[in-house]
C-alpha cells in the first residue's frame, strides 16, 4: 500500500507538470475561448497581487500569501481551467485517482469554516477536519515543521481567497487503497509530528534555509530517495529521487550529480528565473519555479542556497564503461539532432538551451530523466523575468530506441561526463511508460 502511495504522490506531481507543460498550447485555446486564462497566469496573479493595508490583519495575510508561494500550494490545489486554489486537480495513479482539496474561503467546500487549530492539525499531523487521515499525497511529513504562527498566517490568507463552491470529486481509489484508515498504519511507521528545531551552531541563513527546505518547501518530497514503503530514507536526504518517469536530481554536494560545483548564486538564479549557466528548470520543477521559487525573496533564496550547499555529498557509484561503438553511433546522432541547440561539445547556450557538459541531470545514475526529456520533450519554466518557455521537441517519433540509447549514452559519457550507459530496453520501457508511439 505504501509503495502505491508513493507512486500516487509522484503521479500527482507529474499531473501538475502537465499543466505547465501544455500551458502555451492552452493559450491558444484561451485565445479562441475568449476569456479563460491559463491556471499559471491566474495563480501567479493571485500569488502576487498586493494585499491592501485596509484588510484587517493585513500583515498576517501578506505573510500567508507569501507562505503559499513557499509551499507551492497552487501546483496541486489549482486545476487547469479552475479557480485559484479551488482544488480538483486529478492526481492519477495506477490505483485510482486522488483529487486535491478546495482551499478557497468557501464555507461548505473550502476552508472558510476551518479554525486555526483544525488547519494546523492538517499541516502538523495530516489530520482532516472531519476525522480520518490525509493521504500522504499531501506532504504533511514536511509541513509538520511549519511553525504555528506561519500556519495561522496561511489560513488567514486562504480566507481572503475568493470562495468557490466546488465540492471535491470523490477519490476513485481501488480497494484496499480506498480505506483511509490504512494511512494510520503508515503514519505509525514513518511519520512523527515534530517542530522545526533550529541548530544554534549554524547561521541564521542556514536555519532559515533548513526551515524552508525541510518544512513548507517540501523539497525532499521529490528529491529524497524513498524506502520500499514510500517513506524518505533519512540518511539519504536530498540525494535524488525517481518519481513516475522523472528524476528529481541529487541536491547534495556531489560535484557530478549534485550541486557541488554550483555556487550559491547559481542556485539563487536558477530558483528565481528558472535557468542559470548550468541548467534550465524543466519537468515538474518548471512549475515549482513558476508558482513558488521565482516569487520568493532574495533573502529566502539565499537561505535555501546556503542550506543546500551544506548537504554532504552523495557517494559516487562507479558506472560501467560505455561501449565504444555505441559511443560512435551516439556521437553521430548527437551531431545531427542535438547540436543546433546544445552546441558542439555539449556547451549549450547558457540560460537558453542548457549545457550538457558537466550537467547534473544528464549524469544522474538513473537515466529516467534524460530518457523522458528525449522521448517526450520538455519546456523550461516561464517566469516573470524570463517568460520564454524554451522547449525541446519530442524525439519519440523521430529516433529509434537504439538511437536514443546511443545518444543518451554518448551525452552521459562525453566531455568529462560519466554515468551508467543506457540500453535500448530502457528506452523501450520508458516509451511504453510514457505511452508514446513507436518510431
Amino acid at each position: 500500500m505504501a509503495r502505491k502511495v508513493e507512486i500516487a504522490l509522484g503521479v500527482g506531481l507529474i499531473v501538475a507538470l502537465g499543466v505547465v507543460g501544455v500551458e502555451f498550447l492552452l493559450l491558444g485555446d484561451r485565445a479562441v475561448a475568449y476569456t479563460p486564462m491559463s491556471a499559471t497566469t491566474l495563480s501567479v496573479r493571485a500569488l502576487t497581487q498586493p494585499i491592501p493595508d485596509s484588510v484587517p490583519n493585513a500583515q498576517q495575510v501578506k505573510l500567508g500569501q507569501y507562505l503559499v508561494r513557499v509551499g507551492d500550494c497552487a501546483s496541486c490545489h489549482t486545476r487547469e481551467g479552475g479557480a485559484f486554489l479551488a482544488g480538483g486537480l486529478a492526481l492519477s495513479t495506477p490505483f485510482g485517482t486522488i483529487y486535491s482539496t478546495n482551499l478557497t474561503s468557501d464555507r461548505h467546500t473550502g476552508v472558510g469554516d476551518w479554525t486555526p487549530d483544525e488547519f494546523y492539525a492538517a499541516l502538523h499531523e495530516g489530520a482532516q477536519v472531519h476525522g480520518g487521515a490525509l493521504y500522504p499525497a499531501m506532504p504533511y511529513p514536511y509541513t509538520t515543521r511549519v511553525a504555528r504562527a506561519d500556519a495561522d498566517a496561511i489560513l488567514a490568507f486562504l480566507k481572503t481567497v475568493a470562495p468557490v463552491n466546488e465540492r471535491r470529486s470523490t477519490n476513485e481509489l481501488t480497494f484496499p487503497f480506498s480505506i483511509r484508515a490504512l494511512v494510520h498504519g503508515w503514519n505509525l511507521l514513518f511519520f512523527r509530528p515534530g517542530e522545526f528545531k533550529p541548530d544554534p551552531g549554524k547561521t541564521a541563513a542556514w536555519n532559515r534555509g533548513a526551515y524552508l527546505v525541510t518544512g513548507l518547501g517540501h523539497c525532499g518530497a521529490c528529491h529524497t530517495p524513498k524506502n520500499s514503503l514510500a517513506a524518505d530514507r533519512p540518511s539519504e536526504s536530498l540525494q535524488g529521487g525517481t518519481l513516475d518517469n522523472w528524476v528529481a536530481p541529487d541536491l547534495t554536494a556531489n560535484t557530478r550529480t549534485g550541486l557541488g560545483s554550483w555556487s550559491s548564486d547559481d542556485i539563487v538564479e536558477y530558483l528565481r528565473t528558472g535557468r542559470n549557466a548550468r541548467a534550465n528548470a524543466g519537468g515538474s520543477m518548471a512549475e515549482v519555479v513558476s508558482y513558488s521559487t521565482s516569487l520568493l525573496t532574495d533573502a529566502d533564496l539565499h537561505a535555501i542556497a546556503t542550506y543546500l550547499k551544506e548537504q554532504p555529498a552523495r557517494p559516487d557509484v562507479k558506472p560501467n564503461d560505455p561501449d565504444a561503438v555505441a559511443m560512435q553511433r551516439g556521437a553521430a546522432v548527437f551531431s545531427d539532432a542535438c547540436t543546433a541547440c546544445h552546441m558542439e561539445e555539449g556547451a549549450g547556450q547558457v540560460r537558453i538551451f542548457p549545457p550538457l557538459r558537466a550537467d547534473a541531470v544528464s549524469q544522474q545514475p538513473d537515466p529516467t530523466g534524460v530518457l523522458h526529456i528525449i522521448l517526450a520533450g520538455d519546456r523550461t519554466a516561464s517566469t516573470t523575468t524570463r517568460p520564454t518557455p524554451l522547449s525541446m521537441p519530442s524525439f519519440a517519433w523521430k529516433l529509434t530506441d537504439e538511437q536514443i540509447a546511443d545518444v543518451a549514452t554518448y551525452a552521459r559519457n562525453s566531455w568529462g561526463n560519466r554515468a551508467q550507459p543506457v540500453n535500448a530496453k530502457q528506452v523501450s520501457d520508458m516509451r511504453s511508460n510514457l505511452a508514446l508511439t513507436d518510431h
Partner: protein
Amino acid sequence: MATNLPAVDAVLAGFGWTGAILGQQLCDAGLNVVALERGAWRDTPTDFATTFAQDELRYMWRHHLFQNLAYDTLTIRNRTDQEALPMRHLGSFLLGTGVGGAGVHWNAQIWRFLESDLKAYTHNLQRYGKAAVSAYDMTIQDYPLSWDEIEPHYEAFDKLCGTSGRAGNLKGVIQDGGNPFEGPRSAEYPNPPMAMPYGPTLFAKAAREKGYQPFPHPTGNVSRPYTNPLGAQLGQCTYCGFCEKFGCGNYSKATAQTTILPYLMMKTNFTLRTESEVLKVETTADGKRATGVTYVNSAGEEFFQPAQIVILSAYVLQNVRLMLLSKIGKPYDPHSGEGVVGKNYAYQTMGSVNVFFEDKIMNPFIGAGALATVVDEFNGDNFDHTGLGFIGGGYIAQLHTGGRPIEMIYTPQGIPKWGTEWKRAAARNYLRAVNISCHGSVMAHRGNYLDLDPTYRDSFGRPMLRMTFDFSDNELKMSRYLVDKAADIALAMEGVSAVKKNYRTGSWSVVPYQTTHNTGGTMMGDNPTQSVVNKYLQSWDVDNLFVMGSGAFPQNAGYNPTGTVAALAYHSADAIKNQYLKSPGPLVRA
C-alpha cells in the same frame, strides 16, 4: 445580428508584428487590450519544432504558412484600363496569416531608412529640380517626421530583436566596417554581425576593390544567444538556410513569437482571440469617432467589440481594405487625383545578378535570412542621380538566404529552363553559384493605387481589394542601373567564371516571387488633403483610430520595410501613451 461584448480600452485588428508591439506597449501602460487575429495560434515548439522537416515544397510552393486564397484574395491589374481579376495563386508577394503574421515567415532583414528617404520629395526637389520629382506622374511626398524623431524607435526594435550587425554611424561618427551612409545611430547593434560564408566574403573583397564600403547585413537572425529587454530569449542562429517562407524552430529569428508573446501572453490585461476576422470599423453617426469593430469568428458568429481606441494592425492590404469598407477617409481617384485612401501604393523593384564559379564551392545551404554583405553606395540618394533619368535606388547584397533546391538553383545564360541540359547545368552549378540581389525602391505614381473591386466579393460578401500597379520607367531604369553596378562587382569577384544579369523589364507580374513588401494606401503626412494618417499614424478623420504598418509609407525606399514599420509602431504607441491618453483628440492640428 452581432453580439455586443464588454467594452475594452483598445482593440487590435490583426496580430502580427505591429499588433504585438502595440499590445505590449498599451498593456504595460495599464490598458485593457483585446487583439483579434483572423488566423490560428502558432508558437515555436508546436508549429515550427526543430524536428520538423523544412520542406520547401510544403512551405514555399504549397504556401503552408500563407493566406489561403480560396478563402480570401485580391484582384490585380497593371493599369486602370484593364479589368482586374481575382488571384488564385500569389507569387510576387506572399501574404501571411495567423498569430505573428508575415513576421513568422520573414527573412529578418532589419533596416533603417536613410535620412534622405524620409525627405524624398524635398530632398530630390532641392538637388535635382521639379522635373525629377514630377516625372513619370510621380506623386511622392515626405515622411512627416525627422530622423531624430524616429531613431529612438528604430533603436527600440533593434533591442527587441537583438539585431546583429555593425554600426556605420554612431552618433555622427563614421565607423569602419559598418554602413557609412546610415543615419546616426544612438547605440551599437545589440549583437555582433553573423559569421560570413564564402560568397559574401568574396563579394565584400571585390566591392572594396571597386572602392565601395561593404558591410554586414543587419539581421534579426541572432548571431549569439540573446535576452531582450522583455526577458524573452533567442538562441543563436544555426545558419540552416530556412528563414523566408519558413518558421524558425531554434528561437533564432526575431518574430512576435520569440520577442514579445512570451511576455505579453502572461499579462492579465491582454486577451487574444484567434480565428476572429475583423469585418469593419464601426463609427458614430457623424463618422468622427470609432466605436469599435465588428468581427466574425470561425463558427460564423458576429460580434461587436466596443473600444475606446481602435488600432488597425493587420497587413497593409487588409488595413487599406478595412478603411475603404468602413468608409473612413476619402478614397483615392486616380483620374481626378482627389482622395487619399489607397493612394501611393508602392512595392519593391528587384533585380539580380547570378555569379558562377569554376573552382570554388560556395555551399549555398549555409544560409540565413539576412546573411549577406551589402554595399549601399547606390541606395536612396547616396549617389548623384544627375542625368540618370530616375530617382531612388537600392542596396546590392550577396545574400546567402539558403540553398533551397527548387527555388535557388542558378544556371548560366543560355541554358534552357528544363530538360537534360538544364539538369546537367543545375547539378554542375548548385554548389558553384551565388546570387547578388539588387533591392530597389518604388516611387509613388499617380496610376498605382488600391481600391475596392467593383465586381468580385469575398466569402462574407465584401468587395475584394483591387490592386492597380505597374513599374514605371523610373523604377526600371533605376533597377537596370543597380544590376549593372552589381555585375561590375560580380566580375571582380575572385574566381568568377560567368555572370548573368537579371534585369527587371516590362510590366510587373504577380507570378514570379519578388518580395512581400507592399506599401502605401494609408500614407502618413502633414495634412488631411494629402494623407490618411498623421505622423503618429492617427487617422485625420477619426481621432481614436490608428493605422499601423507600411501603408503609412508615402513611397517605398530601397530597403526592406519591417524596421521602419516597427519604428513607426513604437512612435505611435509612444504618442498614444504619453499624449493621447492624457488628452484624447487629434495629436496634430491640421
